[in-house]
Structures are given as structure tokens and as C-alpha cells.
């Protein structure tokens, strides 16, 4: 039997740091972790070294593999030993060498570099792949349509950069419109400002998670660069990968899906993949240093396709009849859904390939699939649903946003209900739960 290889991966983020151990054996990989620690435990403490060692001990418990000996990471090329790792990768844009002894021996990879490497990898795997990294300090967009560098970084963040949303050019009312409850603007502003002061805190109430969802929608709307999720060739679907704490830690995939539909307004067919373990940067670190190892990792295990979104474009009114879609999941009966304007239709699934036959009003389009005013009566497409299924967004493009009013909140409730978001709490325990 081929011997296993082990790699210690540490990603030092601005607010949170993540420790992973990955085991690779016989074309299979197993990821242990993350052990997650607020980064201020390294920057603010005189015992950074000790905390670092404690984090690795936690990782040892998770993986049942000894990594440390006498407080030092054992790095050994000999695969037969039961202790240690083949290599250790530390990823950071900051220099922690004066605080953590291990850094002096191992060195660091820059976060920017490993992210680029990881994105390039996915861009080759998927046609027209875009990526969003939603961290506490910045919102980064990667897409082929963004010019030579293929990346744009914006200063929006849900943690210590939250204050950026309160600049003069942005309006707090735009965040309010996404809240399913009434709130005084002054209290919303103070909430956002306090997030920048106490960036390590967790949104633990429904109210908090709703506010942060509203913030993320506006950050996406404002920050989305031109060309992001841009045009695709006919018949090609878009792929959007999500990473960063704001997405990876979201307790509800349905909520995440709705945030993306509201904030990005994707057109055509878009597959959403989520990095549930915030492994993206570490994956990039492996790519940067150990390409052969990466080939043995099935990235689908860690970047999960959870939802496919089909968005209908065109000016659409509330309750306007749009036509029908016939869904063939391989069962005897074909399911018909009559599409109404202003609604979202969620169809559960589990990664299967299905056929959708759209019979829409002439004026409407599905980008890359059906043009507006096309005389074609039936448009058949095959899609792969996500692990949670797929949605048909019949609210039109551009999206008419809700107003911060009772009517607006009813609209939000309708969209949330369509994705079972209001009842998600009972189901959120299981990894593969419904929304």
C-alpha cells in the first residue's frame, strides 16, 4: 500500500487563522480541521508561540497524528514514520517571524500569491470560473472578465473594514431594504461600526445574521466590478466559487444562495460552489509548492457545488405570468412549474443532471441560452443541480429591489420562504441538510 503523505497548512487571516492537516494516500485525501483561532491571539499576546503550539495540538487530536515533538513541528521526508509531516506551509500577508519561532524555520507564502494560484487552477478546471473571497478586511473578486490581473480587491469587509460601508457615498437605507424587520437607521449604523471594533464577534441571533446578510448584499452590489460574471459563450454555464469567512461560515446555504442572487444578480445559468472549510488559501499554498500532491486531491470534496441558479432576464412585473418550465428529473412524470414574475422557485436536488424545458414569453431571455424576442417556443437545457438543488429566479434583471417598508419586508419574506430560510434553524445540524 502506498504510504501516506502529510502536510501542515496554516492560513493567517486578518481576523481568523486556520490550521489544517491534510493526509494524501493512494489518490485519496483526507482533510483534518480547521482549528480556528482569532488572529489577535497572535498579534496581541506575549504567548503567541504557546498558542500556536496549542493549535497544533488540537489538530493532533482531530487527526490522531503526532505533529509536534518537544514543541517543534517534526518535518520528515520519511513517509513510514508515524510522527511529523512532509512539509509545513504558512500563509500570510503579515510577517509573524518575531512572534512565532516556527516561522523562522519554515517561512511564509504570501496570501495574494496562493490565492492567485488557486484561482488559476479552478479557472482551468471550469469554463468561465469566477470567485469571491469575502473576508473581514476585504472583498476580492476573481474573474476572467476583469482584465489582465483577473482580480479586483475592494475594501469592504464584515469585520474590521465594516466601517467602509458607512462612507458618505453609500446609503444605510440600501442595507435596511434587505432586512426582514424594522430597524432604526442609527442602530444599524452603530451595529456596523461596532463590527469594525469587535471584528472577532459572531452573529449569534437571527437579527444579527439578517443584518450581516443585508450588509453582504450591499457590499456585493457596490463592490462587484464591471465584467465580473461577465458574458459566456453560448451554452456555457458560469461557475462561482465562494470562500472567506462570510461565506464559508454561513449557517445556511439557502441564505447564501439568496444573498448571491440579490447581491450579484447573476444572469443565465450559474453554479455556486462553496468552500465550507475555508481551505482555499491552503489549497493555493499546496499548489504553489507541491503541484504533484494537488493532483491527488479531489477538489470537489472541499469546494462543494451546492446550488445551480437559472435567472430569467428582462423587465418583469410582480405576478406577471412568464410561461412554464417542464422539469425532467428522470422520473416517469415531468414536473411543470408555472413561472410568475417576482418569485423564486426552488427545486430540491442532489447533484443529479436534469433537463429543463423553458417555454417563456418572447420578450424574456436566459443569457447564453435564449435571447429576448427569439421566436423559439421551447428552450431545452441540461443542468447539474447542486447538492441542495437548483433555483429559478423569475424576478427579472435588473432586479427591482425591495423598499425598506412593510411591503418590502413581505417581499423579502416571500423570497426567504421560497428557499425555506425561515425554517432552516431546525435543519441546520446536519452537514447535508436542506436549506
Amino acid at each position: 500500500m502506498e504510504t501516506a503523505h502529510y502536510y501542515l497548512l496554516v492560513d493567517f487571516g486578518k481576523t481568523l487563522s486556520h490550521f489544517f492537516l491534510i493526509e494524501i494516500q493512494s489518490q485519496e485525501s483526507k482533510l483534518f480541521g480547521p482549528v480556528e483561532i482569532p488572529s489577535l491571539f497572535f498579534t496581541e499576546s506575549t504567548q503567541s508561540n504557546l498558542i500556536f503550539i496549542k493549535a497544533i495540538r488540537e489538530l493532533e487530536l482531530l487527526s490522531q497524528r503526532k505533529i509536534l515533538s518537544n514543541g517543534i513541528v517534526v518535518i520528515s521526508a520519511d513517509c513510514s514514520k508515524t510522527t511529523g509531516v512532509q512539509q509545513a506551509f504558512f500563509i500570510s500577508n503579515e510577517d509573524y517571524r518575531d512572534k512565532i519561532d516556527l516561522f523562522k524555520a519554515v517561512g511564509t507564502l504570501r496570501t495574494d500569491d496562493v490565492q492567485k494560484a488557486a484561482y488559476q487552477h479552478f479557472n482551468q478546471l471550469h469554463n468561465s470560473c469566477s470567485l469571491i473571497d469575502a473576508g473581514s478586511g476585504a472583498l476580492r473578486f476573481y474573474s476572467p472578465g476583469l482584465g489582465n490581473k483577473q482580480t479586483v480587491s475592494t475594501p469592504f469587509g464584515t469585520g474590521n473594514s465594516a466601517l467602509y460601508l458607512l462612507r458618505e457615498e453609500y446609503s444605510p437605507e440600501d442595507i435596511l431594504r434587505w432586512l426582514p424587520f424594522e430597524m432604526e437607521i442609527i442602530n444599524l449604523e452603530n451595529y456596523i461600526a461596532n463590527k469594525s471594533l469587535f471584528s472577532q464577534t459572531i452573529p449569534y441571533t437571527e437579527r444579527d445574521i439578517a443584518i450581516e446578510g443585508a450588509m453582504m448584499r450591499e457590499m456585493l452590489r457596490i463592490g462587484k466590478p464591471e465584467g465580473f460574471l461577465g458574458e459566456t459563450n453560448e451554452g456555457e454555464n458560469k461557475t462561482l466559487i465562494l470562500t472567506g469567512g462570510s461565506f464559508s461560515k454561513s449557517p445556511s446555504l439557502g441564505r447564501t444562495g439568496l444573498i448571491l442572487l440579490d447581491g450579484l444578480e447573476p444572469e443565465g445559468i450559474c453554479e455556486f460552489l462553496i468552500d465550507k472549510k475555508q481551505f482555499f488559501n491552503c489549497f493555493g499554498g499546496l499548489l504553489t509548492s507541491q503541484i504533484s500532491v494537488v493532483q491527488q486531491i479531489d477538489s470537489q470534496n472541499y469546494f462543494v457545488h451546492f446550488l445551480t441558479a437559472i435567472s430569467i432576464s428582462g423587465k418583469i412585473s410582480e405576478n406577471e405570468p412568464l410561461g412554464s418550465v417542464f422539469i425532467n428529473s428522470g422520473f416517469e412524470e415531468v414536473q411543470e412549474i408555472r413561472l410568475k414574475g417576482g418569485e423564486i422557485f426552488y427545486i430540491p436536488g442532489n447533484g443529479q443532471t436534469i433537463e429543463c424545458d423553458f417555454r417563456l414569453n418572447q420578450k424574456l431571455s436566459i443569457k447564453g441560452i435564449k435571447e429576448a424576442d427569439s421566436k423559439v417556443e421551447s428552450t431545452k437545457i441540461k443542468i447539474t443541480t447542486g447538492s441542495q438543488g437548483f433555483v429559478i429566479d423569475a424576478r427579472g434583471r435588473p432586479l427591482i429591489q425591495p423598499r425598506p417598508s412593510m411591503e418590502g419586508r413581505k417581499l423579502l419574506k416571500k423570497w426567504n420562504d421560497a428557499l425555506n430560510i425561515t425554517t432552516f434553524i431546525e435543519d441546520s445540524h446536519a452537514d447535508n441538510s436542506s436549506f
Partner: protein
Amino acid sequence: MPTTAHFEKTKKEQPEQRLHYLVPSIIGFSHNVTKTIIRKLPQKGKILVGEGDITEPSAIIGVSQVSPGFRVFNLLEILDISADKLSACLIKSSGSKVFKGDVIAEEKKYFGIVSRQFISPIDGIFELLNPNTGQAMIRFMPVSFRLAAGVHGEVIKVVQEKEVHIRTKVDLVEGVLGSGIEREGILRIIATPREVISFINLDKSFMGTVIAGGSLMSKEVIQKALALGVRGIISGGINIRDYKSLVSSLNPLEDVGLSLLATEGYGLSEMPQDVFTLLEKNDNCFVIINPQAKELIIPLLETKDRAKESEREKLCYLKKGMQVRLLSFPYLGREGIVIEVKKEPVYFSSGIEAAAALVEISKETQTVIPIRNLEVISRLT
């Protein structure tokens, strides 16, 4: 395979010593701690003490000449002349002393019948900055500045012509949000912890003071305080919109003319009672407000032994019985006692699972809250 003993050792570590129970530790306030105060001359001057000297609060430790400011004028516009005629119009030369009422420059027309004059509005030193544009400046006459020690203590370092470092004993109040430069003044309590500071209570008697108390300092209060010559304000909170309207850049280095310090955060937040009690005890005492360090320094009137400053550990493991501050709505800024540190992660209504603790905020109120949303308060006394 490695033995399980290695892992058992980690498991057997006291559960409270696991990483997810590690929390930031803050002081809130400290009593009778050693601190080095830096006393600076506003401009280069002469330092009158040396290392090892013992100071009293009223002792003068440095002197300098300070120009309180300057005013800029455009002579070409005032006299309505072109640049080539300026030198002929000047009566006072650049660098000369002028007094209020002196004619500095004059343009006569129509054989002297009509004249325009530039008369000095203040006492000062006249400087012609740019003869081509007519820009001129009058620098206010320098005044003598005497730097008092302000504290009992020992001089541990002197930077010649500039500053004196004095080690002393102080009471210290820590905040979370500060704006502006370091200032000093006399502490005046203006509101109880729950009250919102009212601008009606402010009058000219507060000139030169650092006002303290209350759960909120509003823009109106800050503006009135500025007009009255108040040096600083320390309160529980400030609304971000008021803060933005005053500190438009949101950069804490920006100074609006007085120093601001919030002990709890943004929004209406009650100042903790024991912090307020400490401030009350020091009402009418000399204080230094340092927004950049987020501190209010209250030099003690008497100092005893000269203990060394100790470095405080900024993290600790959460345990039952600890006093904590809550960092998130709806309890932002509130303090409580840890009743129980949960052994297993808790699922919260947001759907997030996290390490948690049961905290008693009052006799009627207990709440389960993520450990990440807490700070331990360790008062140093």
C-alpha cells in the same frame, strides 16, 4: 501508530484550557498602577530637570516660547495693486515686529488723495511670504510657556529641548474608541452612567476641563464643549453618525479640537458603575486624556513605592465566576458574571454553532453567549 497517551494528555488538559475558551482580557480600569507619562514642550525650549529628579505636580520642568498661531493675508487684494508695486507700498519690512493698529502697507492714488492701507489687526511678527502673489503672514507674538510636571514621580528620561518622561502612579481608565490628540485638564463629572450627557448642563465653567460620565456624547454636546474650551470628553458611547460628522475621515488621528474617548463602543452604552465610581472619586483632579492609547490617565496625588511596570497578558481562559463584558447586541457594553462555561458547542438561533458561556447580567437576566463575543475584565488594584 502513535500511542494514545500523547493525545490523552491533550484531552486531559483542563477543559477550560482548550483554545476555544481563550478570550481577550481587558482592564476597564486600573487603580494605583505604574505608568510613564511623557510631558512635552509645544515647541523646542529648555528642560529644567534631569534623570533621577523627583517631581511634584506643580513643579515647572520646562520652558519655551510659543507662537499661538498666525494669520495669512493677501496684500495685492487688500491694496488692489499689482505685484510690481508691492515693494513700494510696504512700510514695515518683513521680519519686523508690528502692533495692533500699525500701518504695514499703503497705496496712495490720485496724488495722495485716496489711499488704501493694510493695518495690522494683531500684535506679532510680520513676514512677507511671496512678493509675486502678495501673500503675507503675521505670526502672533510668542508667549512664554511653562510646562508643569502635573504628577508626582521620578524623571526616568529627558529628551533635551523637547520632553520629559516621568514614572508615576496613576489610576487608568481604558476605552475602546478614541479620537484626537493627547490633552490634559481637570476632570469634571457631568452625568451618571445611564444618563445621556445634556448640552444644557455645559457652561463656561467647564473651560479647560475633561468632562466625564453618561452613556452617550452627542454631536451637540461635543460642539458646545468645543466652543466652551473643554479639553476632552469621556463617556460610554457615541453614535457613529455623530462621530462621522465631526471626524469626517473616520481616522482616529484626526483631531476636532478636543479629545474624545468612549469606554464601550458606538451607540448608547452605559458606562460601567465601577469605572464611574473611580471617576467620581477623582472629580476635580488633574487628568490626561490620550485617545490614541484609548486611555484616561489620573495621576495619583500620592505615590508610594516605585514598582516596575509589569506587562499584562492580554488573553486568558474563560472560567466560571469571571467578570466579563459583552460585545454584541443586545448587550453591548454590559457586564456580567460567568455562571457556566459550556462543555459542548451551542447552536444559536442564527444557526451558528460556537463555544459558549452562560452569563448573568443582572439578577433577572442570564444569557448564553458565544465566547468570541466576550472579553474578560481584569481590574488591576
